[in-house]
């Protein structure tokens, strides 16, 4: 059994008619980086939101380490070790970088303050750029800095699986490289990652396996190499036209 197993997942938003996800099957093994690719509206983010409990799924199952996440609240799922770094980073604007990162440990019980500070320092080792910003308020940070804070905060949860939603969104190419270096480093240190990306190339460069989604279904899945050369992947992004 995989660490995270999604079977026949269908989901819909309360406001919309029709399913956004129509039977998704995804599995993530311990220690892997798995990426979900696809154009906007393919259902990538919704899949992540279903895992963390933000979107109640209508049918199918999601299990973490064999335990079903069905019907669990968002906070309970976080306590089970699912750490979701959502699209848009969502760093608390009125709190400092240190405070933001510290709060990432809210899902764990009985962590002493000293322990927490030590762990925060570890995160600064991982992302040294943040040290000089440790007392800066969230709203003063740039997009790339926000993304690093969000990832560091997500890691404070000591997650069984880290859900990363569009970390490259709105970032300049150079910054994207930096963020993904950190993602690669995280994996080296043993954290399992489920990564949602529109930027297929960069995502495939760090992933062990990938799934390409289109309108709520898995179109194709496999190793980065195979996906790289798969015309369907291009088509999913740029339309049939761009198939060279």
């Amino acid at each position, binding site marked *: 059994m995989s660490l995270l197993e999604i079977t026949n997942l269908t989901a819909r938003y309360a406001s919309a008619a029709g399913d956004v996800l129509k039977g998704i099957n995804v599995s993530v093994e311990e220690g892997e980086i798995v990426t979900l690719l696809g154009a*906007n509206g393919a259902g990538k983010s919704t899949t992540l939101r279903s895992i963390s409990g933000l979107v109640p799924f209508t049918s199918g199952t999601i299990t973490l380490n064999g335990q079903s996440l069905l019907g669990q609240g968002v906070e309970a799922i976080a306590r089970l070790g699912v750490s979701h770094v959502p699209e848009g980073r969502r760093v608390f604007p009125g709190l400092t970088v240190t405070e933001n990162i510290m709060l990432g440990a809210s899902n764990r019980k009985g962590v002493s303050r000293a322990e927490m500070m030590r762990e925060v320092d570890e995160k600064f080792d991982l992302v040294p750029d943040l040290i000089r910003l440790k007392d800066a308020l969230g709203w003063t940070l740039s997009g790339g800095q926000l993304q690093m804070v969000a990832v560091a905060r997500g890691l404070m949860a000591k997650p069984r699986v880290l859900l990363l939603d569009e970390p490259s969104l709105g970032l*300049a190419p150079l910054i994207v*490289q930096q963020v*993904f270096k950190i993602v690669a480093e995280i994996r080296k240190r043993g954290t399992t990652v489920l990564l949602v990306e529109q930027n297929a190339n960069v*995502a495939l460069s760090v992933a062990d396996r990938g799934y390409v989604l289109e309108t709520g279904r898995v179109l194709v899945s496999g190793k980065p190499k195979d996906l790289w050369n798969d015309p369907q992947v291009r088509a999913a992004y740029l339309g049939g*036209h761009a198939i060279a």
Partner: protein
Amino acid sequence: MSVNLASARLWRGVPQAIAAIIAVVALAFVVPADGYYLNILMQAVTYAIAVSGLVVVLGYCGQISIAQAAFFGLGAYGVAIGMVDFHLGFFPAWLCGIGVAGILGLILGLGSLRLGGHYLAMVTISFQQILTLFLTNWLSFTHGPDGIRDIPRPSLGPISFAGGHAFLALCMVTLVIVTLAVWRLKTGRLGRAMQAVRDNELAASTCGIDVFGTKVIAFGLSAVLGGIGGGLFAGGFQYISPDQFSFGESIVLLTMALLGGVQSPFGSLVGTLVLIILPEWLRFLKQIYLAVYGAAVILIMVFLPDGLWGLMLDRVRKRAKPILGEVEKLPLLTQTGQESAEIVLEVKELAKHFGGLKALDGISLKVRRGSVHALIGPNGSGKSTFINVITGLYKPTAGQVLFAGQDITHEQPHLRNRAGLARTFQNIRVWRGMTVLENVMVGGERPGNDVAEDAALVVERALAALDFVGLRGDAHRMVGDLSYGHQRYVEIARALAATPKTLLLDEPAAGLNLTEKHELGELLRRLKGHGLTILIIDHDMKLVEQVADHITVLNFGRRIADGLPREVLNHPDVIAAYLGEPQEAAGVVA
């Protein structure tokens, strides 16, 4: 068909109102002459008039006013002071009171309605308190806390309203007329505008509605209705004092409106009657009556969001008859037009910064008349910001927007719409409290539109727009009951009914399933070739390449490509923007 529609609309409700007038006059004269029933009815009827004002401002327009008793009091004091101290006749004094209420309402509205929803609530609370202080303390003018006695009743020519029955009849006839007017307001142009403002201000402003002005009018009307009710109250009881118009009474009036159902004047009638009669029935509760009342307000909010009237309507609601028959096609469809060299929308060096983030960083763009121009780019590239600046929802940091030769850079959104710029929204913004037809009619009622001044023609235009998107059969359904994709069509129909020069489609395919996307592509193709300029923003490349004549690509707030579809979509920068830079060279791979 338009003639029938027009006359049907003109006389709508009038026969029923005449019948109701006859009935209430008869009723007024059979009420037992002893004071008890007369007083209860007098109170109920005058309160109901004031409560119908809350239907307008809160129910239709969604603005909270907590000073209805103050306006009621202004009407009452107008009659009392005018008649007792200035020896005016009842009707001139009544008009004075109504006028003062209306003017103060307009002033308060002008001062507070530009700001968010709770500001009006706060301003009205303050006004209510200050008025009570003045009524109590300005002895020389208001007679102070003891109030004013012996207010005379009027006569009109040979008819005297001095008797209780006759005056009650006057009050009831006024109530019938007010109820008719408020009921008709809801289905008229102004009422629709109010509801649009209530349901979604942004969408209202981009459909040509002056949001601020509409709110001020709604609040002013509610103040006037308060004054009308108050004047009759003074004549009915012939004695008034400041405590009858306190904050607490404003709350009572608000509760009446909510209990009955704030969406309809009939609801407010029911609510007023119930809350006037209830304490009489619940005499045993006398002591804790108001406590029960307070608890009831909470329970109503929790369990009866639409009030008693909403509950009754749900039981008996029948589907309105579909409007059959051919209607004239959208004028657009009878024209043919091709892309011309003329530039209809020109954007120069447009920039929009949010703090340090440069969402738009000097974008220039020319859209030719009659073309379908697509604006694409990955998430966060600035497309939505762009359309929000073009339609006036954001103010640009720098740059210029020219539309049809006119500089609209600093124009308000509703004025841009009136100039012929219509849009749809990425996350659908329809007015959920209204039917499909009403939503589209508001589009057709854009000031300056060819049909805007004629209600019948607006209906016809709206039906034509619904024909075009294939939703004619759903015209009378509540728009919220439609599927997501069909709600998007309603938005498109609403925009088309306004006969725009340029149509801006903000991610029309977002959230649609495959079939719906396919249908949307069909629909957009049918729009082509009629001379309508379309600027479409989307992620869905299949859709974009089907319909676009030109494509502009944004990334990081800058333009990275511009030109014909085939060139643009094969441009290496564009592929990189969508798929990311090729990584072999970047050396990230672990």
